[in-house]
């Protein structure tokens, strides 16, 4: 028998280590030290109800356990085999105590659809994919469905594009299917470029066949025989696994002519991106695949009309494709039963930032940010206070605690001033300055702007300069109005999605954290204490013992004072490097 004690940060904070100690002591006393083991584990994702103890193999799940409960758990459950009812987890929807494996579903917030095979099959072995119903969906399509049937299934499922704006996938396929041409293309957008997002890469590395199969299904539906995967060259492992997968699929005849004995033929090639974020935009991506600068062009014409080499092309991203085979296998009814009214199924997020359980998660649409951050994510690192979460990368915005209980779906995120984007989710705490965060994203956009249209090429640069100016304490209230106007014009006039969304990080932080902007311009103060130019280091006379450590460590000799006398920082000379603060053992250096 094993007693698993949650060692996640949040449970540790509520004395889970003490609980483990108590359990061990109780077991020793009862002479069970060798038979029953107490193990500290990682986070169960139930931090709100922590500390958590799980008894194996009985699967009993105790919540909000206190150190003094150790005795009763050992005495009742371990020795007598009777679960301690009052500590058992209560299913919030039924109000019943739950034990055993029936409990699993109710506390597990994640459902893996796109990631269904990631971390379970060997991605370099096609047989393992086939063993998990792999290539059954394309088989079903070519033998049982017409192209129109396939489009209907996808339309009815309510699947929306996972790459950004959430355009209905079935509708996109339908448009491409209706455009007649001698050649059409299925394009997989694997140019994942959001800084802090790696969902697509994980799918390609963990389950490449699901994407290949889905592209073939799409080809069948729209009448294309050629597929292209546009993948970042910075993803060598994903490229390698895709190549292996394509090779194996060809060997089996699952790509190539007359797939599974049908009339349908389809093959896939790789095209490499070369480090340009704008190539995530589909027209830019197509130009890049044609060997040109990845500059976007006006839509219409949409790729469905005139895409790669001027032929009708359907572009979807990796995660969208990865969801397709399951929908065919399990039916649209099943898929559309998950999620919210307008956003069906699940979404993969790369959860990162100031959070305990950094990782890749897949959650049903409609889950709240609170559930993601405080349950799955295990709460904020180092017990700090939650401040904001950034979704949608450089195109998205920051959401605050007001949004914690908003169900997440495409439309709610847009209404809240952010967007789904590809699924980066970066958590920020009280130490993060929101003006600096906005500046960080703008720096990214400035670097990644293709330079074709004026607002994005010059406007974003001007926003970035103004944000820098503000974080140095030089801005005025009038600058904030100017900033907002520039943001609105850039959104309103830019050529492609990159420019049209690039001001979002600024606008959303202005909407939610205006007080921080005002503090920067009126008080010349950074409330989060992160803007270096606005920091002021002073020495508290009473605490300073005159050890001279700070003065010796100061790179610009800004600190003076006699030995054993309080020291003093010359603000004119100080470069705010923080060396004195780090060196002082007496807490005498104060940062304002």
């Amino acid at each position, binding site marked *: 028998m094993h007693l698993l004690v949650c060692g996640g940060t949040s449970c540790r904070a509520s004395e889970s280590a003490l609980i483990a100690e108590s359990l061990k002591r109780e077991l020793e006393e009862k002479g069970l030290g060798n038979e029953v083991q107490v193990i500290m584990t990682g986070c169960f994702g139930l931090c709100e109800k922590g500390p958590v103890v799980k008894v194996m193999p009985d699967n009993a799940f105790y919540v909000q356990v206190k150190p003094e409960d150790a005795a009763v758990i050992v005495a009742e459950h371990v020795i007598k085999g009777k679960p301690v009812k009052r500590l058992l987890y209560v299913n919030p929807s039924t109000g019943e105590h739950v034990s055993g494996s029936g409990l699993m579903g109710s506390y597990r917030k994640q459902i893996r659809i796109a990631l269904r095979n990631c971390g379970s099959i060997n991605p370099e072995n096609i047989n393992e994919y086939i063993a998990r119903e792999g290539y059954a969906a394309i088989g079903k399509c070519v033998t049982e469905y017409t192209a129109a049937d396939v489009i209907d299934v996808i339309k009815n499922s309510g699947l929306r594009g996972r790459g950004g704006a959430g355009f209905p996938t079935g509708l996109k396929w339908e448009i491409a299917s209706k455009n007649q041409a001698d050649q059409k293309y299925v394009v997989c957008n694997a140019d994942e470029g959001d800084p802090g997002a790696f969902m697509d890469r994980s799918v390609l590395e963990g389950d490449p066949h699901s994407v290949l199969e889905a592209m073939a299904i799409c080809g069948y539906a729209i009448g294309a025989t050629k597929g292209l995967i546009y993948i970042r060259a910075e993803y060598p492992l994903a490229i390698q696994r895709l190549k292996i997968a394509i090779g194996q699929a060809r060997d089996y005849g699952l790509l190539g002519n007359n797939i599974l004995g049908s009339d349908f033929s389809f093959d896939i090639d790789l095209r490499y991106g070369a480090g*340009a974020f704008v190539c995530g935009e589909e027209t830019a991506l197509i130009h890049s695949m044609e060997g040109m*600068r990845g*500059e976007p*062009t*006006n839509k*219409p014409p949409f790729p469905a009309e005139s895409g790669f080499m001027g032929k009708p092309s359907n572009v979807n991203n990796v995660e969208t494709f990865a969801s397709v085979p399951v929908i065919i296998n399990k039916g649209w009814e099943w898929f559309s039963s998950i999620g919210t009214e307008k956003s069906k199924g699940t979404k993969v997020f790369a959860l990162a930032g100031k959070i305990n359980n950094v990782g890749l998660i897949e959650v049903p649409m409609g889950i709240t940010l609170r559930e993601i951050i405080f349950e799955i994510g295990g709460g904020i690192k180092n017990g700090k206070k939650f401040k904001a979460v950034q979704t949608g990368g450089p195109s998205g915005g920051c959401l605050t605690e007001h949004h914690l209980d908003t169900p997440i779906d495409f439309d709610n995120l847009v209404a809240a001033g952010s967007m789904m984007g590809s699924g980066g989710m970066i958590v920020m705490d009280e130490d993060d300055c929101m003006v600096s965060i906005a500046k960080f994203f703008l720096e990214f956009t*400035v*670097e*990644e*702007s*293709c*330079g*074709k*249209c*004026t*607002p994005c*090429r*010059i*406007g974003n*640069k*001007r926003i970035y*300069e*103004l944000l820098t*100016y503000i974080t140095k304490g030089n801005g005025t209230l009038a*600058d904030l109005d*100017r900033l907002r*106007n*520039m943001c609105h*014009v850039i*959104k*309103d*006039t*830019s*050529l492609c999605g990159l420019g*049209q969304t690039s001001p979002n990080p600024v606008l959303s932080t202005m909407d939610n954290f205006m007080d921080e902007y005002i503090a920067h311009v009126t008080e010349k103060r950074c409330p989060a204490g992160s803007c270096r130019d606005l920091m002021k280091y002073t020495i508290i006379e009473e605490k300073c013992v005159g050890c001279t450590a700070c003065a010796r460590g100061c790179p610009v000799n800004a600190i003076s004072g006699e030995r054993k006398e309080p020291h003093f920082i010359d603000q004119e000379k100080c470069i705010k490097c923080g060396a004195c603060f780090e060196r002082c053992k007496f807490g005498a250096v104060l940062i304002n």
Partner: protein
Amino acid sequence: MRGRMTMETIKLTIDNKQIEVEKGTTILGAARRMGIDIPTLCHMKLDDLNIENKPGGCRICVVEVQGRRNLSPACITKCDEGAVVRTHTPRVMNARRTVMEFILSDHPKDCLICPKSGNCELQNMAIRLGIREITGQEIAEMSTYRKDTSPSIIRDLDKCIMCRRCEMMCNEVQTVGALSAVNRGFMAVVAPAFEQNLEYSPCTYCGQCVAVCPTGALTEVDHTGDVLRAIADPSKTVVVQTAPAVRAALGEEFGMKPGSLVTGKLVSALKELGFDYVFDTDFAADLTIMEEGTELLARLGKFLNGDEDANIPILTSCCPGWVNFFEHNFPDLKDVPSTAKSPQQMFGAIAKSYFAGKINVSRKDMVVVSIMPCLAKKYESQRPEFSVDGNPDVDFSISTRELAHFIKQANIDFNNLPDADFDRPLGESTGAGVIFGNTGGVIEAAVRTAYELYTGKKLSRLDFDELRGMEGVRQATINFDGLPINIGIAHGLGNARKLLDDVRAGRSTFHAIEVMACPGGCIGGGGQPLHHGDSSILKARARAIYEEDKNKTIRVSHENPYIINLYKEFLGEPNSEKAHHLLHTHYFDKKAKIIVKQ
């Protein structure tokens, strides 16, 4: 109107007014038809020439379309049925103004001393939008680039606004490929490979990039100072020649309507400026016809006799941009073009030999200036093979635009000048020489002479309408008294490339091909008054050239009495040894080469 019946039309409302347009019309097109002048900057369309620049990049032309989330660029947004468009709401006007401020925030403010001042589309837009200040300029970084001066063109990319017109001209129209958008984002700019100087690129100096640049980023090298100094130098005899296309365009610089012929005023102005002799490049054009026409007939004769080395088709060689183009791109075909020098260089060679001798001035004391519609002529005049002991046949080549500035600086009231005549002997020309300024003109002039010399008959009709027009590639078969001669014409180097590819592949059935580098021919040259995207200006100039031809008493080159005299007194026969020495040239392989290191 009857043809319209089958055309699908679309009804929409712009600024509360209804309009019905053909399907596929842009909002900009529809608005212009209604007299609503939506401002544009990067967009440029030369109707008839099939040239359009529409990257949709500047975002000045944005308008509000009801139901659309964002503003739409009028230049590339097609009209939708029932659309409601507004072009001057506060939202639109604020956006347009802010975008303009963005552009200006990254543009030098040295308008007063900019070569484009007064003729700058960006400046005009700033005036039109009433920009009075650029907020935040103090903290705005500007993108700066190395300046580059080539023999013909000055690039000051600090002034580039990324309209991409030059890139489009250089690649799509001319297929020269010297320029490309380079870098990304704020530092994106149009430049040659490795941001090297144009001299190290396959640039032909056709100047079409300069002709379309809306700002002072691309301008011509200004030689008017050199010319002024030469005129002021009492030891120099300064001879000027003026190209045919100049007289059909110069008036525009003085507010005259496009197509005004100003030959007489032009001669007066040049005399006022102090040139010692005012001559006409048309004279040299007639000379060119004698040489090239003779060469054509000789090669044709060989060809008809079944000689495999006959080198048919013969290609014209008057256009220096075109010569540069085939030296870079078709060096394997460098024996195909006529060896005749261009009129500018023939003139220089004759002026500094025949004429200098006649007036007893030594070569080094004679300065030959050319007024050209062209920037490649600047480069051509500097080719080493066109000089004798370091003394060039043509000392300075200035463009129509430079001449206009020169005239203004010299306090000459151009519009009220009396007409004057060219000096003799190098100022007399025929109608055939005049039409060199238009696409098709050189070959038409050559046909007039070749026909009469070949058949020994007089042409009853001198206007070959089948050789005229604005189609990029044209062909016609002229009946030389039973011998059908196939003529090909291309203007714009991209069109020339098509014909050259055929020649290279052995598919060409032409006996003679005329190529002019610039769309429309010399009337659309890179040194002409800026057309700012209005192709009706080019057409008016073309009409003026044909009008001048019509007004001439002599319209075939071989009847020019001064030409006849020149051969009699000096050259002997066309294609004589002396003529070859002075009036013919050879070409070089300028293709980039990879040398394998041992």
